């Protein structure tokens, strides 16, 4: 009986994560289509490139936010902090499974944060790379 309920629990849990993963996959699929349109040689997203984008110090943006980690912190599984001192939910999907499931919200924050950090909007490839990195975290 216990085994059965445990199995049922696991099935339910898997179903739940599948429900949350689906919108994220849709968002990635849309970025894939866009990346292909922007660059014919596009051959898929790279979590490694995403990690570099996330951790590198960039120029072109604002002096007090040269990197994504300026606010989100070095540890992707820990909370970040806004310039005003408010806590930011961790960026890693493993600890924040509901993240990156609302396409409009994802776009809104890429637009704002890429401008802050890079001084320009991110390309579809950069967005997909960054998301690919976060899904491995």
């Amino acid at each position, binding site marked *: 009986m216990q085994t059965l309920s445990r199995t049922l629990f696991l099935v339910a849990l898997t179903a739940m994560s599948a429900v949350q993963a689906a919108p994220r996959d849709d968002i990635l699929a849309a970025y894939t289509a866009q990346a292909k349109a922007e660059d014919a040689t596009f051959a898929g997203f790279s979590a490694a490139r995403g990690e570099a984008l996330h951790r590198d110090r960039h120029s072109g943006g604002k002096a007090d936010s040269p990197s994504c980690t300026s606010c989100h912190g070095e540890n992707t599984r820990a909370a970040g902090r806004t*310039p005003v*001192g408010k806590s930011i939910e961790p960026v890693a999907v493993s600890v924040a499974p509901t993240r990156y499931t609302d396409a409009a919200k994802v776009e*809104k924050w890429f637009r704002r944060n890429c401008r*802050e950090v890079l001084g320009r909007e991110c390309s579809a490839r950069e967005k997909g790379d960054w998301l690919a990195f976060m899904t491995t975290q």
Partner: protein
Amino acid sequence: MKPLIRSIAVGVALFAVGAVMLERAKAGSDEFFAPVTDPLTRQECGSCHMAFPAGLLPARSWQKMMGELDNHFGEDASVDAATAKQITTYLVAHAADSTGYGDMRRWLRGVSASAAPQRITELPKWVREHREVSPREWTRKEIATKANCVACHVDAERGYFEDD
């Protein structure tokens, strides 16, 4: 049975009067500012900083601010047009100088009617209320900026800004 109904009715009436008086007292105090109740406003304005109560600024200030969100105190806080419209409607309806918030006008003492102040922390009343805070206090790491109300006012999210 009748006396029971009567005592219930009296009890309910007394409770209602008490609740109204409490609301009035809260609205009339410098320490209570009704928190943002609109979920969209709460979510959008509250992701980087606390969703500041609409009663902390006059309507004209909110209108100006909502029209300049792409440069919001140096940050890009832009939202889509439909979202901006809904948030502006809420903020204006609940601003310090809006109907129903008459007691909040005291908060705007010293603010020129033609001015649309943007920084709550530059309102004469705000400055006056915080004059006892030493410059050294403000540099504490956990405070970060004067916009971080909750660093000192632990119940600010619920509208209470008493001295802590």
